[in-house]
Each structure stands twice: as C-alpha cells, then as structure tokens.
C-alpha cells in the first residue's frame, strides 16, 4: 500500500510538472513566420524526468532526515543547524573504502609521494599537452584563485558577496589600461592590480559595515553592476563595450617568447600564484584574523561581545578577498590579451559563488575542487556546454538542500582527547565540535 501511495504521489507530481512546464517546454512560437511548433516529445521527457526525479528527491530527503535523526539520537549537543556536521565527505568515504582515514593523508609516508606525483603531473602538463589544454588549465587556475578569494569573504566571514566579478574586473582593467596608456608590464601591474582591487574592496566595505546577510548580498550585487556600467559608459577611458585590445603577455627578463612559450610561461605564473594563494589562505584560516572572521560569520553580536572588532574584520575580509580577485584579474588580462565589460557580469560572480558552494564553504581543498570541476567539466563535455548555466543553477539549489557543507566539507580544527582511549573515529571534538562550514 505504501508503495502504491508513493507511486500515485509521484505520478501526480509528474503530471503537475508536465502541465506546469507545458507552455514553455512544448510550444514554441516563431514570431517571424508566425508558425507554432509543438514539441510533444518534450512533454513525455518531462513526465519521465519528473517521475524519476521525484523518487530521487524523496530518497535524498529521507536519507538526510535519517542522518539528522541519527545525529540527535547520538545526543551530540553540537548538532550544527544545517545538519552538515554528520556528513562524511566524499573523499572520506572513498578513503574509508581503502581502509584509510583522513589522517592517513597527513602521514609523511603517504603525503610526500602523493604530493610528488601531483607536482610532477602539474609541471609536465603544459609540455605534454596542446596549447589548447594549457589555455583551459590557465583559466581553471585563475578561477581557483578567484574562488579562494571569495572563500575568504563567504567561507570564513559567512558574508554573501555577489559582486566579486567587479574586483576581478578592476584587476583586469588596471593592467589593461596601464598597459594600454603607459606600457606598464605585467609584473608591475600585478601588485598594482591587487592594490587597486583591495582599495575598491575597502571602499565597498565601508558603506556596508552595518549590513548583514541579505542586504549585504544585494548591495554587493549593486556594486558589481555599478562597476560594470561604469566600465561600459566611461568609454573615454575604458574604451567602453569594445574593450581593451592587445594587452601584452607577461614578460620574462625582456626575452622574446613564442606564442607557445608565452602560454607555458603564463601557466607557470598561474600555478605559482595558486600555490601562493593556497599558502596564504591556509595560514589565514588559523590566524587571529581568520578566527575573528569565523566568529563574526557565526554570530556578529557574540563576536563583538568577545572583543572582536567586527568592523575591522569585515574590512579586512573584503580587502583580502579583493586582493585575490585583483590578482586573478591581472592574470586574466594577461592571458586573453583582450578584456571587455562582458566578462564581468553578475553571473560571473554567481559562477564563482557556485564553485565555493559546490566545493564546500571555507574548505580549501573543496574550493579548489569546485573551481576545477566547474571550469574543466563544461570544457571537456562540450555536449553540456549549452546547459552549463542551467546545471549550475540546479547545483546551487541541490547543494543547499542536500549538502550545505559542499563536496568536501570544512573540518574545523579539533583537539584530540587522549587518543588511546578512543575507538572508531579519529578525532573527537571538544567544545567547538566537528562543525563544518558555518
């Protein structure tokens, strides 16, 4: 009976979706020839899709419910409100299959060879693959930097920033314009772009110091649009919608590089900057500033009560996030040698947001994985490239509903309590708990 009831429910749901999407999915009007095209096959597809989808949805919801109730049953007082803390990350489950725990990865025996292999692959990559591949990898690396930058604001500070592409644009235009008007080279522009972007970050942060959550999101979004509209409209300086052309590639002690060499060189610059970014962001996470940010992200008032200067923390977060966006922008301008305002729309900010959310907020490996997946997958699966944004939208919703912690959820630093007495799990949290992304 239970099965029949579920079946009936799903059938009704499928019917609902078919009817709901009927006008837009099935009918298509050609307004030029005034003909109407009926695409009935889509209705059937929709029916089957939503029927199967409803089961999947129910299954996932049930699983999440079970996880939540298991957690309450365990009586863990630190059940984090998004239910993410009980989630084991994909990597962890994968490792568990191999009989490892997360700590195995940290052991020198495993970590050093693994890093060595990874390093070798990364270094050899541009020499064994085509320029096309290197170019894709460069954009992926640029997005890794961007996503790590956004992660400072979103992951640590828990502030939704929807204007991140604006800082990216400021970095790119700093280099593009300085190069165009004054012939400034890449290496001088790199810190300048980062600085310009950081200043813009502070300028944005000052008015929004008092804002939180939703308002912050909408103001940052507005800021992003203002910057883009300025770039379009100040055509005397920025050359408007047609953009800045023939920006020079990074120089190497004045050597003449061929196109291939220049791409390879750019690849290594990106790689170095990614490593630098990871290093800094990792250090930041457990620093005083990082902890202040996390505290502020979790509870503004509590953090202030504990003596955190939230205004300063907010300013720092915005400035630091913007620095990475600026660096990524300079790299982007150097890589494409052409920039125009179209590359910095709202949806580019949302794409970066999507990377952080998919990977796992505040989790550095997660964010890197998220950026690589979202850039590389659509490149290699050309079939889906049209559906890219549709899928990104769905990913945002599905991740939030089922896995708010992301693919590789953040593990807070936990302190062990006499490990010899413990069985099973590797670390038992004290106080703060094993809470994931806030």
């Amino acid at each position, binding site marked *: 009976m239970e099965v029949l009831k579920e079946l009936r429910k799903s059938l009704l749901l499928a019917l*609902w*979706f078919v009817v*709901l*999407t009927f*006008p*837009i*999915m099935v*009918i*298509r*009007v050609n*307004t030029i020839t*005034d003909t*109407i095209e009926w695409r009935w096959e*889509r209705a059937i597809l929709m029916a089957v899709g939503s029927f199967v989808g409803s089961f999947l949805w129910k299954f996932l*919801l049930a699983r999440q419910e079970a996880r939540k109730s298991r957690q309450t049953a365990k009586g863990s007082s630190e059940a984090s*409100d*998004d239910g993410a803390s009980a989630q084991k990350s994909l990597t962890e489950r994968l490792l568990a299959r191999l009989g490892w725990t997360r700590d195995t990865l940290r052991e020198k025996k495993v970590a050093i060879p693994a890093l060595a292999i990874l390093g070798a692959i990364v270094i050899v990559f541009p020499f064994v693959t085509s320029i096309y591949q290197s170019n894709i990898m460069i954009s992926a690396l640029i997005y890794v930097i961007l996503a790590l930058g956004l992660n400072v604001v979103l992951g640590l500070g*828990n502030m*939704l920033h*929807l204007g991140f592409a604006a800082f990216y644009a400021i970095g790119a235009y700093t280099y593009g314009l300085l190069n165009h008007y004054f012939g400034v080279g890449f290496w001088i522009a790199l810190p300048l772009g980062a600085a310009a972007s950081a200043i813009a970050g502070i300028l944005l942060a000052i*008015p*929004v110091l*008092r*804002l939180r*959550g*939703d*308002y912050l*999101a*909408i*103001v940052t*979004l*507005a*800021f992003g*649009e*203002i910057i883009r*509209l*300025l770039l*379009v*409209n100040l055509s005397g300086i920025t050359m408007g919608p047609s953009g800045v052309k023939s920006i020079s590639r990074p120089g190497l002690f004045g050597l003449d590089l061929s196109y291939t060499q220049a791409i390879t060189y750019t690849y290594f610059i990106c790689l170095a900057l990614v490593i630098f970014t990871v290093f800094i962001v990792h250090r930041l996470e457990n620093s005083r500033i990082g902890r202040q940010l996390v505290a502020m992200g979790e509870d503004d*008032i509590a953090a202030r009560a504990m003596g955190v200067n939230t205004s300063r923390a907010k300013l720092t977060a915005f400035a630091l996030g913007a620095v990475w966006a600026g660096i990524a922008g300079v790299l982007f301008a150097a890589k494409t040698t052409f920039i125009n305002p179209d590359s910095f729309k*709202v*949806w580019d900010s*949302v794409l970066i*947001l*999507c990377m952080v*959310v998919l990977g796992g907020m505040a989790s550095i490996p997660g964010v890197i994985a998220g950026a690589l997946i979202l850039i590389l997958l659509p490149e290699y699966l050309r079939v889906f490239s*049209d*559906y890219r*944004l*549709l899928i*990104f*939208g*769905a*990913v*945002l*919703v599905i991740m*939030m*509903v089922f896995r*708010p912690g992301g693919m590789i959820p953040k593990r807070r630093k936990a302190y062990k309590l006499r490990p010899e007495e413990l069985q099973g799990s590797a670390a038992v949290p004290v106080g703060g708990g094993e809470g994931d992304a*806030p």
Partner: protein
Amino acid sequence: MDFEFFVNLLFSGLTRGSIYALLALGYTMVYGIVKLINFAHGEVYMIGAFTTLIMVSVLTILNLPILAIAVIAALVAIVWSAGYGYTLDKIAYKPLREAPRLSALISAIGMSLFLQNYVRLAQTSDFLPFPRFLPTVRFLDNYDGLSSSQFIIFTTTTVVMVILTIFIKFTRVGKSMRAAAQDRMMATLTGVNVNKTISVTFLIGSVTAAIGGILISAHVGQINFYIGFLAGIKAFVAAVLGGIGSIPGAVLGSFVLGLTESFGAGYISSDYEDVFAFIILVLILIFRPSGILGKPAAQKV
C-alpha cells in the same frame, strides 16, 4: 527643458513605478514572512510574459477578437506563473526553512539562474516581439503626454493594490499572513497554518508579478529571457527603499524609484539609468536601513 518633456518623464516614471510596485509586493510579502530575498521572483515575472506571448500566438488560430485572446492568454499566464511561484517555493525554499539564511539565499540565486536558462533553452535567447494588445483608450486620443498603455498600467496597478489591501486587511488568509509576518512561532501556536500561509503568499506574489510582466511587455513590445533579473533587483531595491516587509512602503518606494530613474535618465544621463537605482539603494542602506516607512528593527540578543 520644456514642460512637455517634464510631463513625459513624469508619466514614464509613474509607469515604471507601477511595474516595480507590482513586483515589489511579492518581495516584500515573502520577505515579511520567510525573511528571504526571493531572487527568482523576477523570473516569475518573465515567465508570465513568455506564457502570455505563447498563449496569444496559440489562440490566434481560434480567430477570436484580440481583446478576448489577450484576456484569456493573460489569465492563463497568471495561473501558470502562480504555479511556478508555488513550485519554486516547495523545491528551493521549503526544505531550507530552518537552515541558515545564507543557504536559502544561495538556493534562491540558483533557482533564478535555473529558471532563466530553462526559458532560454526551451524557448530562445533572442528578443521576441510582444503583441501590443492593450486597447486604446479613446479620451486620451488628443493628448499625447500619456499613452493609453500607460493609462491602463496605472489603472490596473491601482485596482490590484486596492484588491490586495482589502484582501490583506479583511480576509482570514490576509490576517494569517499578517500574523505570520509578525511572529511565525506565535502564529503557529494560535492555530495559523504557516506553511499554507507561505504558499498563499508565494501565489499572490507571483500573480502580481505576472500581471506586471504582462503589462510592461505589452507596453514595451519585446521580451527575452533576461528581462526578469534586472527588474527583479530593482523592485527589491524599491521594497528596501520603502521599508521591507511593509506593503504601502513597497508601493511608495517603487514610485520614488521609478520617478528617480525616469528623471535621472531624462535630465542627467540615460547611460547611467541603472546606476541610479543602485546608488539610491546604497544611500538608503547607509542612512536609513529600515526604509522610508519601515520600523527600525532592534536586534535581539
């Protein structure tokens, strides 16, 4: 700068204001109860316009008078948009009611992106001509400051506002909506079915958004899949301007925003038309975060 120019700007500002008002109502009502910026609200408006276009084309086969076609198409579109509003709440927001607000916000952005691209892929990414089916109003014939479509937009908006006010003030559902907006927990305790109330809120918001979408598309004469996003953001700005959660505030804010944009574009520079809305937003949030009619909310600790 003659008087006629001023009057033109005034009416175009009021037109914009009316449309923003129809959209802002949805934002402000949803925000009042769920405390969520429904980013996908603009998409419902866009879907309303698309459905109308499709239905008009389909119904043309039946050889009905144009007004009948327009009315039927608009009604169908309104019902369907309400369906979309209801469904998107159930999928993207309902599972996240108890989650941190950031999660729901990200989910809303995802939904907006999804719906935009759903329409883009299922229909087209080009601009489509939208039938200008709004009837001409005779007594405006010898006056060219106010076009009849603008006149119809004002009247419709006014009628919708009046109906909505009566609905919220005097019906049972309206009462439960106000109760839920004041205190969700308390409303539940007094026997209000909050979940149902939220669904009704989404339905009403989607209906007004769809009306706005249809009217403005018939006025402007073209649509594409992207029209909802910017309109949605601006309507949200209007809602914030008036004081989010307050219905008269949303209407007032919308007209202030519409007029500012129109006069700003007319007297300063039309290139920066969109910037005005955002500058107003930033200013209002700095100097009066609770909006024109909003009550300053004390932060509970």
